[in-house]
């Protein structure tokens, strides 16, 4: 069934089709429609779930973790300040191996107050042990939520499904809503191997000395290492049923590209427009959209980028004192390869400033003109 829905509602539909059983959430712009629709779905019986209207994001994640440990499939959604408030609980989720799936709408961190998009909120949670999926269309949002549950539950690692504020969260697109029966066969009900029950009493998460803690974290990393292959395998299974593949990256005209633009989120689709425009002028440029930041697609980056003459990463984020965060990862991927491909680190669109096709043209023009970047950070559209 095709529907015209906003990105936020795509998250709600994903959570509904996955048959989320407990949802605990707190409102924050620009996430509110996610939980408004879910609360309606719970109220009218479309979704058989408990919706806990908590008094903060911190409690939202805490309640999700309690429910997850009890054996229920859990979902929440937040953004920016709310995500930051959850930070402690994000560690609790991954450390406790609770496969919660959360939507996060990329919004810039205050101050100054901003409700517009950049990625510093979710990327600040890089080392919390969550998988992170960056979406570029509403269709991808619905599909990603369903697949994220499957991967998360198999690995006992939580997932964040991420949308740009407004550019995706509030944009209406045609979405093919997957058939519930097919989703049910793809994603069976949540059956964790251990759960909190008086029938088999255990203590979860208690005091763990140096003789055991290290191994718990080692196991978390070992399971995270399984994620790239599992995400791709899950994507292929999903493709067989629904005809759409998710995977870790999406390439656009990158096969013969001399310059590869690296993007994430909706900027990836804007980049395509720019790629087509530049191609008409004879510039061999392509796009690699990175869909999963954790696990990071290191192998794909090595394989695809080492063929190019130059790589231009466009980051809608910054690691202060260093440079763009995706650029760091890309450089890290290329380290140790024979390739000497220069990586240009562009920063654009902080605080929701538009990233347009002309932004990418500027990126490509600079990259064409220079053998290597003149600076660690190349700023696009900043007023100086």
């Amino acid at each position, binding site marked *: 069934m095709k529907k015209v829905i906003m990105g936020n509602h795509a998250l709600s539909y994903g959570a509904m089709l996955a048959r989320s*059983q*407990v949802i*605990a959430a707190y409102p924050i712009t620009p996430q509110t429609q996610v939980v408004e629709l879910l609360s309606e779905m719970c109220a009218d019986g479309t979704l058989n*779930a*408990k919706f*806990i*209207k*908590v*008094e*903060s994001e*911190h*409690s*939202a994640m*805490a*309640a*999700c*973790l*309690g*429910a*997850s*440990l*009890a*054996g*229920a499939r*859990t979902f929440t959604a937040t953004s920016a300040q709310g995500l930051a408030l959850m930070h*402690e*609980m994000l560690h*609790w989720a991954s450390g406790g191996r609770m496969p919660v799936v959360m939507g996060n709408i990329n919004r810039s961190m205050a101050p100054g107050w901003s409700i517009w998009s950049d990625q510093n909120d979710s990327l600040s949670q890089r080392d919390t042990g969550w998988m992170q999926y960056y979406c570029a269309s509403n269709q991808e949002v619905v599909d990603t939520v369903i697949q994220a549950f499957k991967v998360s539950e198999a690995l006992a690692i939580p997932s964040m499904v991420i949308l740009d504020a407004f550019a995706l969260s509030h944009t209406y697109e045609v979405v093919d809503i997957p058939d519930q029966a097919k989703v049910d066969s793809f994603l069976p009900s949540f059956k964790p191997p251990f759960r*909190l*029950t*008086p029938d*088999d*009493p*255990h*203590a*979860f*998460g*208690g*005091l*763990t*000395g140096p003789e*055991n803690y290290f191994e718990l974290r080692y196991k978390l990393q070992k399971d995270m290492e399984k994620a790239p292959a599992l995400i791709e395998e899950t994507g292929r299974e999903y493709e067989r049923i629904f005809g759409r593949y998710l995977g870790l990256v999406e390439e656009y005209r990158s096969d013969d590209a001399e310059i590869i633009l690296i993007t994430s989120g909706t900027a990836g689709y804007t980049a395509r427009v720019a790629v087509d425009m530049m191609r008409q002028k004879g510039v061999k440029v392509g796009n690699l959209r990175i869909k999963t930041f954790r696990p990071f697609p290191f192998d794909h980056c090595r394989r695809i980028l080492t063929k190019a003459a130059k790589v231009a990463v466009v980051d809608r984020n910054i690691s202060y004192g260093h440079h763009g965060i995706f650029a760091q990862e890309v450089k890290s991927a290329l380290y140790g390869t024979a390739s000497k491909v220069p990586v240009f680190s562009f920063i654009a669109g902080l605080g929701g400033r538009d990233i347009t096709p002309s932004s990418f043209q500027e990126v490509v023009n600079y990259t064409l003109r220079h053998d290597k970047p003149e600076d660690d950070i190349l700023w696009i559209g900043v007023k100086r």
Partner: protein
Amino acid sequence: MKKEKKMTLTLPKEEYVGSGNLACQGCGANLAMRYVLKALGPRTVLCFPACCWSVIDGPFPHSCLSVPIFHCAFETAASSATGVKAGLEMIGDTQTTVVAWAGDGGTFDIGLQALSGAAERNDDIIYVCYDNEAYMNTGIQRSSATPYGAWTTTTPVKFFKDQPKKDIDAIMAAHRIPYQATASIAYPEDLVRKVKKAKDIRGTRFFHIYAPCPTGWKSRPEDAVKLARMVVQNGVFPLYEIEHGEKYTLNIKIKDKKPINDYLKLQGRFRHLTEDQIKPMQEEVDRNWTRLLKKCEEN
């Protein structure tokens, strides 16, 4: 022929707390757990935020309790319990009692927001605060449950705590929750009766259990139960229950209310206090007592 004397157990005989746990000598929190679990029975899940009990239970992979435990974040006892209850219900377990089990720091201070949220929503959980009147697990720092006059490691004798204890029971009453009660480990029958009563009520239920800490109070371990009795008899910590935030019932009546001096003298944390400093403390206790009696009489 001599008549055989029979002992009658006044408490359920089942034990859910194992021996050899990590509690200090004379720990009131340990007894509180023992009595509460006797009342609730085996179909219970506990949520422990950071507190003495997150240590008492024993390090991984040990646990001294025969019920399951979710060790949760410091400020999340109530919200974690809410989530556990929702999760259990969604997978078809509607019978298990879910208990948030927190110290005074996790209740009066850092966990107050989550507790207020759960109480306002009237989530179907039992919240137990075992009150040892300071951050004992971290080494005796003052909390908002520390009484006026007390020494702690962050309120040294020269600057003893000069604010009264936060009235958490009044705060909870203001939420109009279906049931709440104070209890003391010196009155186990009263405690068990009230917990059993609460078990059959739906919605948020709150217990405030007075749990002496000999380590932190600089008192003798063998005086723990005695102090827990004296604090009731002198009206510092009266035992009462409140239904729907309005109906107050005094559970332990006091015929001859004792002065607080003897109670204070048994605890090193009050040793520095002069008679002049104790006098307003006594007056405060008397005022609170009169106010409570009035509320109980209104029923």
